[in-house]
Structures are given as C-alpha cells and as structure tokens.
C-alpha cells in the first residue's frame, strides 16, 4: 500500500494523525477518520492527557496488531462512510440507502480471505460500523453453505470426539435441509 494514496488533501486544513502498522508502513489520515477508530482515539486522548504541551502534528500512533493492507481498506471505507454521513446529515434514511449501495460495491472488490483480516483489524481498532458491516458480509458468504464449507471458510477443525458430531447432526437434522452443494 502506497502512502501516497492516503496523502492529505492539500486544501484541507484539518489535523492529521500518523498511524504506523505492524509491517512498518506509515499512514497519515485526517483526524476525523482516525477518531472513528476508538483504539486510536483512546491512545490519542491518553497521550494528550499525559503531555498537554505536545502538538498533535508529531504524534505517531503505532498499531502493532494491524497490517497495512487491511488498514488501507479500512481507511478508504471510513472516509467514504464519513462522506456519506456528511452528505446526508439531515436524512438518516437516505444515508442508509447510500451506505448500502456503497457497501454492495465495496464487497465486489473484497475477497473473502480479506474479510477475516478486515474483521480482525476492525476489531483491534474498535471501529464499530465497519465491524458490523463485515460481520454481515461474512454471514452472507456462509449463508446456506454446508458445515464443511463453513469450517473451510473459517479455517476451523472439528474438535468433537468421534461420534459426537454425528449425534449433533442427528439432533439438528431439521437444520440440514436445503443446504447448497459445495
């Protein structure tokens, strides 16, 4: 991910915050975007409380649990989210429609393996809207799929004792009707 793509808009005068990922990429983002990441906000608030005189321009916030790839996607998502919110400030329903439209387009460019990364990153950053959205996206990806498919999707192994799983399948036989073929 190039830092250039996240470079600040020269006409904007708002504060910038610098984020450093686990793979040592540096992202400069607008304060409004960074504040959507509650983890960053918390860090930022703590820093300000500890050192009142320090300016924000030099603050570099390390994100040891986030890689650059999901972060870049989250920043794009967050910017768009704020933009849609600003455009429809007085109309919640319109905002939801625009957001839904954007999210549908967004998913077209995201591979399922990225979704897992994105959830982990959004969870670490405590970015609630994104987390909700990705959870919904995962749900629709495993909708109507077999247990085997879903295990593969999540990278899980069955850890039941022999026979246990069969028993469960028998008990919940009603829930196995109409599953798509893998």
């Amino acid at each position, binding site marked *: 991910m190039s830092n250039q793509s996240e470079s600040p808009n020269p006409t904007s005068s708002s504060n910038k915050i610098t984020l450093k990922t686990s793979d040592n990429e540096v992202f400069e983002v607008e304060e409004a975007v960074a504040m959507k990441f509650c983890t960053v906000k918390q860090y930022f608030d703590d820093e300000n409380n500890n050192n009142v005189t320090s300016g924000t321009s030099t603050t570099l916030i390390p994100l040891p649990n986030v890689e650059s790839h999901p972060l870049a996607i989250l920043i794009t998502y967050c910017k768009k989210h704020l933009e849609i919110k600003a455009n429809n400030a007085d109309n919640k*329903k319109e905002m939801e429609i625009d957001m839904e439209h954007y999210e549908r387009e967004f998913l077209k460019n995201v*591979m399922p393996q990225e*979704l897992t990364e994105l*959830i982990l990153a959004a969870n670490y950053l405590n970015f609630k809207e994104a987390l909700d959205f990705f*959870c919904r996206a995962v*749900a629709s990806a495993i909708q109507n799929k077999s247990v085997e498919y879903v295990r593969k999707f999540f990278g899980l192994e*069955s850890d039941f004792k022999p026979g246990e799983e069969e028993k469960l399948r028998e008990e919940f036989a*009603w829930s196995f009707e109409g599953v798509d073929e893998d």
Partner: protein
Amino acid sequence: MGKDRTKLIKLVHPNSKIKLQKGTNLPQDRLSELPNEILVCILSSLSNLEERQRTSVLSKRWRYLFRNLVFDDSILVPLWKKYNCGEISKDRYTMTVSSERSKFISRVNRALLKLNPHDIIDQFKVVFNLDATYTSVIDNWISLSLRKKVKKLSLHLKTLWGTRYALTSQLLQSYSLESLTDLSLASVDVTGEVLEYVLSNCPFIESLHVQSTWSLKNLKTSAPLPKLKHLEILYCDYFRQIEIHAINLVSFKYVVNMTTLKAVLGDVPNFVSLSVMGGYARYLFDNNDCSISRSLSQLETLDISYILGNRFKRIPELRNLRQLKLGIYHFTNGLFNCTSFLKASPMLHTFGLKFELADENMKAQGNTYTQDTYTHQCLKVVELINFVGCFAQMQLALYVINKATSLEKIIIHTKKLSLTKVYSESTQKYLTARPINNAKELGTRLATRVELVIL
C-alpha cells in the same frame, strides 16, 4: 497477528467450489483470535434458524454460541398456503399441524435442556400455534428462560381456534424479572393486572408489545417506567385505557379499532414516533386532551392505517414530521386528505401511501383539488405500497407526485397477490404483470430527475 502472508487462511470465494480433500493441511484458525461477541454478531446476521443452528456443529467453541433461541413455524408456511388454497382439508391441516407441534415442542425442550447451568439466554422466541392445552409446556419454557436471565422474551402463539394460553402472575412471582428488556406477547391471554406486575418488577424493560389479546382492557402502573422506550398494543379489541409514566418513551403503536383511548403517559419529551388507525388519529387531532395529542408537533414519524374516507379537517401543525405513511382503505377524500397532510407537514421528506384495498371502480374524489396551486418544497421520496395501478391509485399517486417539486425518488412496492384469490395460472400471470406494467406507466409521467424503483 502473523506477518507471514502465506499463513493467512486461504479462503475460497463463495462463488467458487471448494474441494474437500482429506489430508490437506488445514490453515490455522484465525477467527479464534476473535472474541465470542463477534462470532455472535456474525451468527445473528444469519437470516434463519436453521443457519444459526447448523453452526453449533462446527466445533466445540461454536457448540453453545447459539444463544438466541428462536423457534418458529416457518416449516408450516407451505402447508398453510395449501390449506388456504383449498388443496387440503381442514382435518388434514389440523392433523399435520398437531404432528409438527409435538416435534416442535420436543425441539424447544431439548434446546433448553442442553443449556449448561451457567448459560444465559439473550433471546427466547417461540412462534407456533399453541393453545391452553399446552399451558404446562409454555409455563415451563417461561420459567426456564427467566432462570437463564433472558433479555428478550417473545411468545407468539397464533391460536386460531381454541382457548388461549394465559400468562399469570403466579408463574412469574417465583422468578426475578430483572434481566428482561423486551417482552412481546401475541395470542396470549394477559390482563392489565399481570402486565402491571411485569412492568413494576422489570426495572430495565425497554420494549413492550402485546398483540391479539381480548382480556387486556387497560394498562396502569403507579411506579414510573424510566427505561420504557417502545410500546405497542395491536389488535386488542377491548383495550381502552392506558395510564403510565414513561418519560423516555420514543414510540407508541396503537393499532386497535377503537376511536377513543384514555391515555395518560405523563411528560414524553423524546416521543417521536406514532402509529395508529384512522379513527383514533382523527380523535387525537380533534381533542387536545391527552399527552399524545399534545406531543403531535414533536413527531418525526407518523403512520396512520385504515383511513376510511373521512376528511381530516383539523390536522395540527406537524413541524418536525419527516416520514408519513397513510394507509388508504377507502379513496373518498383521498386527494383532500393528502393535501391537508402535506400542508400540515412542511418538513416532510418521505411520504408513503399504502393501499389497503384495491378497488377497481373507485375514483379518488375531489377533482377540484388537482387544480390548486399548492406545492410542497421538501418532499424527496414517495413510496407506493401494495400498488396495483387501478384508476384511483394512479390518480392519487400522480397527484402527490405533482405536488412535490423537489421529488428525487419514487419507490413502488407492487402488490403481491395472495394465492387464495388466484384461480388459474394464466390469471395469476396476468395479475402479476399488470401492477408492474402500471408502475412503469407511472414512471413515464415522471420528470427525468426522479429515480424510479419498482419492487
């Protein structure tokens, strides 16, 4: 978080096929890094019960994540349709329902018994045709879920024939109701006294929904209900008095065929959403004698169903109203009422017209109003619900559309025909195609800036 990209689980695009080979290296379980809340969030986004239940077979960790115990009768829907179309007899229908019922009961019982002693339930919801014969079963479900500190309790018992199950305070007295935030009862016999007991003992209750209960005549509590936000009383034909103090009430839905209601709600500064039937709406507009009618100017959302064709002569100024839905049952005075509501709501953004009855031969009366020069500056979205496209519907729709000078979007929900009314396949095709064609026809009359969505 692993930096080695090759360690990332290789997920397969949902549209492609996964080969299930034995002995292949399984990728590491990266989702195991996620807390349970997130897995539950994914779980709850799955649309149906089968989906959610199936995840309990994934692994030990997933086995008991499924805490939203929702049991419904979706399995009976095709049967109900067949019965409705006359394909099967009432006896056959009742027989099949009763055999499905015993399976349903054991399924719910098993799920509840399987819970570990320290498990808690977020939601317990039962939707099934169950009458008073099953009192001990239902009592037991309620006791168990209350013991498991249930937050949302819903019983929709759908009794068609037979005596309804009655909820009593004796049953509830043995348990703490402190965990309860949402209570929803449909086709459950419940009196005002029982509800008073529930409300007085549920300090955290936020939402109360009571539907299809004839024994409910009033609802009164002396203690304030500071948490209550949503109150819904639907189809309780004998309900005529409410006296509560719910300072944080946000929405009130009262869909009862009653033109008067003695309502005392106290101060309701956050009250913004009201849903009532036409007769009661007129009563509220005409009489300024209760907290609801005094709060009308606060409303942001207003839904009035079953408007029978009377004139709404005295609509107070609805200066905060953003969303309005009118259920048109009878087209008489339709144009008059639409104009009156538009004039009363200068900030209106979305206007929904729901056609409750499709009458081919009706005209929306009052042609003189089409000539008036009044226009609405704010209205952006018009929704037409149950649209068939008969003359009166078209007339009313075009009238509203022409009044809205800043209209951006029109959404048409065409009427889904119920199977009972369709006798042959060809009629069905004809009837299904027609509303869509009429909707398109309406689209040709729109200005180019207006987006048309047909559903």
